[in-house]
Structures are given as structure tokens and as C-alpha cells.
């Protein structure tokens, strides 16, 4: 159930990318897609009432395996957020430069390229 909500978020973002005319709105839609994916990743490691995934010598390994949450997706999401930040910074910088040159954010009016 909750997984389908993630995909709903992703699809909302996709709709935004495909239909919006404003560059900033397209950038935001891409972020919405990304957040949907992050949520999906984190949910895979989630376990209701789970314990933190920390092992020390006093913990029984078998019991720990049954109780703890999966730490890997959390690490993946952190990495993915950092990558997303890099791409976002680049996209915003490009949008600013385009606004400088063309004086508009409307992709309908930015079309020196064709063919």
C-alpha cells in the first residue's frame, strides 16, 4: 500500500517534468521523482518496531537479525541524496545562466536549437 504511494509520488513528478513549461518547475518535478525513489528505498529497510542496526558482543546475532532494521538502504539513500544535491546545484546554475541569456524560464521560448 505504502509502496504504491511512493510510485504515485514518482508519477506526479514525471507528470510535472512532461507537462510544465517553466524550467524551475521542471527542476522541482525532478526533485519530486527523486524523493519518491528515496522514500521507496528507505521503506525497504524499514521494520515496524525494529531495533537500530548496531552490533556489539553482548547481542545475540540471530535475534538481532530478526529484529533490526536493514541498514543498507539508509546508506544508499544518503549517497543518493548527495548525488541529487550535486545534480540540483548544476541544474539551478544552468537555469540561472539560461535566464541571463534568454531572459525567460519558458522552455517554449528557449529554442535556438532545432533539427
Amino acid at each position: 500500500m505504502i509502496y504504491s504511494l511512493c510510485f504515485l509520488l514518482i508519477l506526479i513528478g514525471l507528470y510535472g517534468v512532461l507537462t510544465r513549461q517553466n524550467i524551475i518547475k521542471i527542476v522541482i518535478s525532478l526533485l519530486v521523482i527523486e524523493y519518491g525513489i528515496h522514500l521507496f528505498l528507505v521503506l525497504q529497510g524499514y521494520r515496524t518496531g525494529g531495533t537500530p542496526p548496531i552490533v556489539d558482543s553482548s547481542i545475540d546475532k540471530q535475534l538481532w537479525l530478526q529484529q533490526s532494521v536493514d541498514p543498507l538502504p539508509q546508506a544508499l539513500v544518503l549517497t543518493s541524496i548527495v548525488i541529487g544535491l550535486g545534480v540540483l546545484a548544476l541544474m539551478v546554475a544552468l537555469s540561472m545562466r539560461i535566464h541571463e541569456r534568454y531572459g525567460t524560464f519558458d522552455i517554449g521560448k528557449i529554442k535556438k536549437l532545432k533539427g
Partner: protein
Amino acid sequence: MNNLVPLLVAIPLGVGFLIPLAVRWKPQMAELLSNLALFGLVLLSLSLIGNQTIYHMGGWPTPNGIDLRIDDLSTLMLLTINGLALIVGIYSVVAMQPYTSQHRYYSLLMFLVAGTNGVALTGDLFNLYVFMEITAIASYALVAFSGEDESFEASLKYVVLGGLSSSVILIGISLLYAVTGTLNMTHLASRMSEVGETAPVKFALALFFCGFGLKAALVPFHTWLPDAYPAAPAPISALLSGVVSKVIGVYVLARLLFNVFGINDDMLLLMRWMGGITMVAGGLLAVGQWDIKRLFAYSSISQVGLIVLALGFGTTWGVVGALYHLVNHATFKPLLFLCSGQIETAAGTRDLRQMRGLGRRLPITAGTCMVGSLALAGIPPLNGFWSKLIIVVVGIQTDHTAWAVTVVVMSIVALAYQLKVQQRAFYGTADAPMEKQLPVSESPVLISIPMIVLAIGCIALSLLALSGLEHPLLVGPAADVLMRGVWKP
């Protein structure tokens, strides 16, 4: 030898960060450091030929840690990437002089190489995604590097579509993790047979086809490419079309399909159709172009289609043809892009209608460009002929005669648009005002050498075919890696 494997990623990454510091000391350090690093990488990849090892990052054993896999296929890719990057690096020394803040260009070039090397080496799905993003971010920035209105527009288009494809690939990766509980490609391959072809696996596969198809610019996902390649500086167009889109698109797709998912007839059918349509559409669109770099960009789309089509035949020899053509394409297409850079500098325009008679002013460019054009069109004895020959014969052998005929027809179309370039750019007599306007200038040595090396490469790579058409040196073992099927732990 085993311990040297991570250096293939570490050297370019380290040098990339070192360059901004080193230029404070001496501005020439950027060119020097990056070319030295690329030379070292070529030597490293040469030393890896024939090695079959798995390097465990940080000493963690296979299912837990990140693996770097060296086999014949990744060695072939590493040789292609680093060899071409070195040639492009040397060409850049003079070609990038007109641009400001050159050291940033070299840093980005290093990151591009680091990411592409990482993609060729890695044995972990999420790690693959990270390296792919390093490559992608570097190439977005490099496409915008020349700082003209068009290049920002092209780069934005590339960022939005590239970001979308990365997201799609990440959904696929997380779906696979949800189903199998592992990201290690070896472990994933063995878990895949236990899980079977359930709906999430099929969905992930479809997402990979779309995502990597966009990175490789297969029709209908090709729209970013004809804008991005002409907008980038010539050496970057060469590198992007020669290796980057081939490695992060075609290589990864082949690796995942053959070695992780296990190939089946449906996938082969899809690859044949996607590749075939790409080949035809790219070739036909190239004929009508007047912008020389845009023409080469469409021709790039056509050639990547040919490679995917050959993979789709699914026999060992078909894969040999595909990989052989991939390597050949990494010689003649960069050569053509480098020539287009020279033509643009000499003529002051990229429009083929406005240039004439450059052949006498640029004899070396004209000669090497002719070699590249003929190799692309598949004229014997140049390298393009042998790979196309293999692909056509395989097509007939596997009862796909219609596709084989299409390949031959598209080769003739390729000859047509290449001759258009030759005739417009190099032949005829230049108008008097144009002759006076621009001095007769053959390219500087550092620009001529890379072009001559690539032209010799076009001829020399046909020697691979002479070493045995069934099983060429380097390419044959690489094809065997794919055809050995799903990885066993």
C-alpha cells in the same frame, strides 16, 4: 597486479581534485598533470590484459563489500576509454587554448574518465549508479563548457533527460534490491535464478532498457544527443560519442542482460528492434543535416543502433561483431569529431553550405577525415568494413536476412552523408574573400598528431580481424565473457 586495480578510478579522481590546486603554482600544470595521468592509465590498462580477478574494496568478501571485476570485457573497455581519453587530452592542449578557465575543463575531463572507468570495472549495482552519475555530472558540465546560449540550452536538455534516466535506473536497482536482497552483481546473478521471472524483475528490466537506452541514445530516447554533441567542445564530443555513451549505455546494458539477468529470446527481440530502428532513423536523419557536428551526432546514433542490433543477434559471433564495431566506432567517430573541430576553427562556421575548398588549406585534416569517413561507411580494408562484414554475415546465419540487408543499405546511406561532408568541406575552390579572410594554416603539431594516430588506428584495428575473423584478438575473449552467461558465485 591485483592491488593496482582501484588506481584506475583513484588516479583520475585524485588528479581531478589536484589540478585546481596545482594551477595556482603554474598554469600549465593542468595540461601536464592530466595528460601524464591519462598516459599512466593507458599503461595500467595495458598491463591488465588477460587478467581475470576480482578486487574486494576494503578487503570485504564478495556478498558484503563492493567488488571491482577485471575480465576480458572490462579490460577491452578500459583500453578503449583510456586510449581515447589520452588522444583527446593531447588534442585539448592546443584546441582548448581559446577558452577561459581551462583548468576546470581538465578537472572535469578527469572526473569523466574516473566515472567511465568505474562503470567498466564495478561489480556492484549501486556503485555502478554512483559512477554513472559522476560521469553524467561531468559530461553535463562539459557540454555547457563553451558558454554559448546554445550550449546552455543543450546542457539543460541533457540534464533533465539524463536525470530522468538516472532516476529510472535507480528505481530499477531498488526494485531488484527489494526482490533479491543484494546489490552485488555476482550474488544477484545467482539469486536471480531462485527468484525467477517475477513481475518486479520484469519491471526492473524494462526500466533498465529505458534508462540505459536513454544514456546510449537509442531511438525514441535519442533527442538529447543531436543537441548535446554539437554544443560541446570538439574533444568532448569525440569522447562522449566514442566511449561515454557506449560504456554507460551499451556496455552496462549488455553486462546486465548477459551476465546478471540471463539473456532470453524476448530481450534479444527487443534489442534487435530498438537497435534496428535506431540505426535506420539515425542514418536517415543524418543525411538531411547541414551542421557538420549535428550530422556526425546523428551518425553516432545510427552506429550505436548497429551495435545494439548486433548484440541482439545473440550468437557469440554476433557479440564479437558488436564489440568489434564498438571499438572501431571509438576510433573513427572521435576522428571525425576532432576534424570537425579543425574545420570549425578554419571556416569559422559549422554550416556545410558555407564552406568550400578547405582541403588545400587543411591537408592533414582532409586526409584523416577521409580515412574516418571511409571507415565509418565500411570501405575495405578499413576497420569499419570488418565489423560490418561480421554483423551482416551473422545476420544471414541467424535467419535475420532482412536486418542484414538493412545494415548494408544503411552503410550505403552512411557513405552518402560522409561524401556530402567531404564534398562540401574539402573539395571545390574557396571563394576569394574567404581565402583572404583566413590565413592558410595547417593545424599545429599537437592537433595533427592525435588525428593522425586515430587515422592509423582505423587502419591498424583491421589487423585484429586478420588475427582470426571468428575470434579476433582482445575482442573474441571479451565476447566469450558475455556468452558464458550468468555469473556463478
